[in-house]
């Protein structure tokens, strides 16, 4: 009916998606270990209405044709993995990863998921779990009557128990690294799962092979910058308004023609 209508519709829906991504980032501005998303746009295919160089008469030709774009689409969201601010919490069960790498979490179905959120807890059986109650992998079970719990930079977990001055080593937290962390699939609950695009996890000790070190008593904040998101929100709103203006213009034209003729 009117090409501009469909084109502006793609603009509206792309800006709509953009707003959704921004609002999700903003909603997670204080989620521990959250990594912000960024939306990628791409212009849609062009249709050639008139071919440049086509003949228009016996000795004349089109110097430049008419190629019309058909709008915009959103191609992908990218997780931006730069590190968030480190917050000191002084909680013994809080661990932050300074550098690359993810903590491994055993999902209820047996799969391994990965997280940057180091808010750990103890469950009823004295095992180290995430806030959701999923076991940290490799599993670490604390003895009774623990008086001191400490995690070393390399992930070594040691405790002292009442009546024994010597610390005992319980195990070691391992970190997983990925060739392309942006290819991980976010599943919510601060967890990511491996995909073909991320590559297989390279599991090992913290501090080795480029994996970050583990810091106890700290948490990694969300890497969302509220100011950036608000500025993006303003540009998104204006772009949305202008595309809706195109729709109303095209609509007024069509209504004018049907009223007049």
């Amino acid at each position: 009916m009117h090409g501009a209508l469909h084109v502006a519709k793609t603009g509206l829906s792309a800006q709509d998606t953009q707003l959704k991504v921004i609002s999700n980032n903003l909603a997670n501005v204080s989620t521990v270990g959250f990594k912000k998303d960024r939306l990628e746009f791409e212009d849609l295919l062009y249709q050639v209405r008139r071919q440049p160089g086509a003949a228009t008469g016996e000795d004349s030709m089109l110097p430049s044709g008419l190629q019309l774009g058909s709008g915009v689409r959103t191609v992908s969201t990218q997780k931006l993995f730069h590190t968030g601010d480190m917050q000191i919490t002084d909680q013994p069960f809080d661990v932050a990863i300074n550098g690359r790498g993810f903590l491994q979490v055993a999902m209820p179905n047996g799969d391994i998921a990965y997280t940057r959120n180091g808010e750990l807890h103890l469950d009823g059986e004295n095992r180290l779990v995430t806030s959701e109650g999923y076991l940290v992998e490799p599993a670490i079970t604390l003895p009774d009557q623990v008086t001191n719990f400490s995690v070393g930079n390399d992930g070594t977990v040691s405790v002292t128990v009442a009546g024994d001055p010597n610390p005992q080593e319980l195990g070691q937290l391992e970190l997983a690294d990925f060739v392309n962390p942006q290819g991980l699939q976010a599943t919510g609950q601060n967890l990511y799962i491996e995909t073909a695009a991320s590559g297989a996890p390279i599991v090992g000790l913290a501090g080795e092979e480029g994996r970050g070190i583990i810091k106890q008593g700290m948490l990694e904040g969300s890497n969302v910058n509220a100011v950036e998101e608000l500025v993006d929100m303003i540009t998104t709103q204006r772009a949305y308004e202008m595309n809706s203006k195109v729709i109303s213009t095209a609509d007024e034209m069509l209504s004018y023609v049907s009223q007049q003729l």
Partner: protein
Amino acid sequence: MDKVLYVAMTGARENMYAQQAHANNLANATTTGFKSDFEQARAMRVLGEGYESRVYSMSERPGTDLDSGTLMQTGRDLDVAVAGDGWLAVQGPDGNEVYTRNGSLQINAANQLVTGSGLPVIGAGGGPIVIPPAENITIGNDGTVTIRPIGENAVEIALVDQIKLVQPEQGQLFKGRDGFMHTDNDVPLAANPNVQVRAGYLESSNVNAISELTSMISLQRQFEMQVKMMKTAEENSSAAAEVLSMS
């Protein structure tokens, strides 16, 4: 019936095409590295036997606005913006070398450096750039990609490849149907060492939203005038029919 009806109709139809071109620019007002399309109308006389008394209107795209957009700081290692003139060479959907200014790059599962839409970026050797597992990737101002391999010390910096950057002459590039810039017959351009990129930046779309919106409105009014002409043609013809009617 008077041919003015058809002349006015082409005017209205071409106005609609022109609006689609502006609507496409506006829809891409936030697309990274997008270059807006120009649009103009041209008089097209109607050729044929007899006196050429009629001139139709015709919309066309005389070219693409190659002005730079604003550089936006993102701080991401793999975001590159071309400073000044020049283009990044990537392997297009049809396998030919095409050019883009959208430098939000990623690494895919095959370790290749690709654009946001997954097209491989072309390196100095003419093929895709393959980046081994790295702890840290730096793209230099001349497009060189250096990495610090995983597990290596900070002194073990390795040079991987160089992004192919080109600087075509004026009028050498045109926008193809895929939205990328092509050369005539897709002949690859030679790399130009003078083109500079800035890592950690992206180039915004160069669409001027105000001027696009103003064009939309002025085209809307033109369209209404064409419709008014059609209406007048109709009134003339019914008046003539009335005069000539046998009553």
